[in-house]
């Protein structure tokens, strides 16, 4: 007897979720993968600094100050005879912390402001946007410098100052995303079945406007690290013994004629890390939303 039932195998569709999808698209781009690798190395350095650093980053030895690289001290020693490699590895922690806090301040304040501004429109939108315009009229790092001048120098104040100056950028970004989504039918449908403002904002507007914000945050990580290092370089950031890349560069600057390695390596580290976040950010933009491609 032949079984009359047709034995058709159901095609197997693997559900891997949107994250996997983004990663698959990301993995097709060499530059984006390079960025991802750099960012992962940076994260590992920050997380496992005590295990990776060959020496104590604070242990100084004036007898060996400005010593050139050796096998024991691969990147040489700084102006106080401290191991530059170890200080760079520990410095990753500070940079990561700065980046995360700056972006958190920008997103946690900027996004709700932008969403509310776009959702409610009218007078609220007008007033908020004029305020955003004014904040954006401060060129580059200037607003951060003004805030630091008033708050006083130090790592916390650097993070707060740079964080505050990114708020208008997130507000503007969230606003334009929401304006585009607000008019979609599913939002109208949700409103017509009587959803509250809060429900519409939390369930529809914010989740659907996340892509540009994720892309912007990755790129902002680069800017935050760059700015914070710049402020450290100006002597406005961390207090001395702390290992921070910008401050290390500032320390080495004075010895550039006699021992260039002291300023070269921390700067190279800032450059590579920022490049990594920029590459990843560019890749994510292409993977998440090809329309944003410039």
């Amino acid at each position: 007897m032949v079984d009359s039932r047709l034995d058709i195998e159901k095609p197997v569709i693997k559900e891997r979720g949107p994250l996997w999808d983004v990663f698959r698209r990301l993995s097709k781009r060499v530059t984006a993968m390079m960025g991802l690798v750099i960012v992962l190395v940076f994260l590992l350095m920050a997380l496992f600094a005590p295990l990776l650093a060959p020496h104590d980053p604070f242990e100084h030895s004036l007898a060996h100050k400005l010593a050139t690289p050796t096998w024991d001290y691969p990147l040489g020693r700084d102006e106080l005879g401290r191991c530059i490699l170890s200080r760079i590895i520990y410095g990753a922690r500070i940079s990561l912390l700065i980046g995360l806090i700056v972006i958190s301040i920008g997103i946690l304040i900027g996004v709700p402001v932008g969403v509310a501004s776009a959702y409610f429109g009218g007078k609220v939108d007008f007033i908020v946007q004029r305020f955003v315009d004014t904040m954006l009229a401060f060129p580059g790092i200037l607003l951060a410098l003004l805030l630091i001048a008033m708050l006083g120098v130090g790592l916390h104040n650097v993070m707060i100052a740079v964080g505050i100056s990114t708020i208008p950028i997130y507000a503007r970004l969230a606003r334009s995303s929401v304006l585009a989504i607000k008019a979609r039918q599913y939002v109208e449908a949700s409103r017509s079945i009587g959803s509250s403002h809060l429900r519409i904002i939390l369930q529809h507007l914010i989740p659907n406007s996340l892509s540009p914000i994720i892309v912007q945050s990755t790129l902002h990580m680069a800017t935050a690290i760059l700015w914070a290092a710049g402020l450290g370089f100006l002597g406005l950031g961390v207090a001395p013994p702390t290992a921070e890349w910008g401050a290390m560069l500032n320390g080495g600057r004075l010895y550039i004629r006699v021992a260039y390695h002291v300023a070269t390596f921390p700067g190279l580290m800032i450059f590579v890390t920022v490049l990594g976040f920029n590459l990843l950010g560019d890749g994510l933009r292409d993977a998440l939303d090809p329309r944003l491609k410039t």
Partner: protein
Amino acid sequence: MSGQYIIRRLLIMIPVLFGISLIIFTIVRVLPGDPAVVLAGPHATKDVVDQVRVQLGLDKHPVKQYLLFIGNIFKGDLGTSNRTGLPVMKEIMSRFPNTLLLALASILVATLFGVTAGIIAGVKQNSKFDYLSMLVALFGLSMPVFWLGLMLMLLFSIKLGWFPAVGAESFKHLILPAITLGANSTAIIARMTRSSMLEVIRLDYIRTARAKGLAEKVVISRHALKNALIPVVTVIGLQTGTLLGGAVLTEIVFAWPGIGRLLVEAILSRDYPVVQGVVLLVATVFIFVNLIVDILYSYLDPRIRYH
């Protein structure tokens, strides 16, 4: 039409300028501590503090205080420096031309290299030059200005001895700082020019120009470039303003006597009147540059004026 446009733009600028002065006013006064003590400086005696309080009208209502602050700005009075005792306006004006020179030289470098690289990369899309120049542009975006400055100084001043390392005495002193400060903008302008070029050369009128048998050179230089460069003008304008703010780091590296260095010195010595004055000036210049760019833009692209 365009006269009206300029007037409208000028009118829009007024509230932004007031907004900026209001933000600066608020930041300086709202933050913890007595602003009179803060503005008088750390070593001021009680008499001086009281004098500052009266001078700034800090005993008056906040709204009155703000009006007084604005009134003083219109009179050109930005207070006196805690450090030198000189009028802030005088301090700024003795340094500002240096920063302006540096910013203009940087934007010249950035425009020259950025636009050229962007056009070639756009016209020869996916070529080796395209990949290479866009990679270099990404490097330019990621490079810490202060590190680039130090590395250029190390190579061209200390090792090769071609240019002086610090100071602002001659044209030779200008070259390294201008390249340093312009690097970031070069990258941004190159990327913008390339994408704008790519957009334009796909348009119908370019296809028409090619179809009627014009040489590719003519198509690019006479037809495509004109429209492709319009958005680039905006970016160049925006960069000029950003450079004024970004000059801070470059000026420190090369000991360039501009307002960026003045600002950092003022922050480190808690010389608040100078900080307030420099920030106010740079933000105002930035807004004016944007205005000029917008007006220029409306001449280049007549469609803008009719919006």
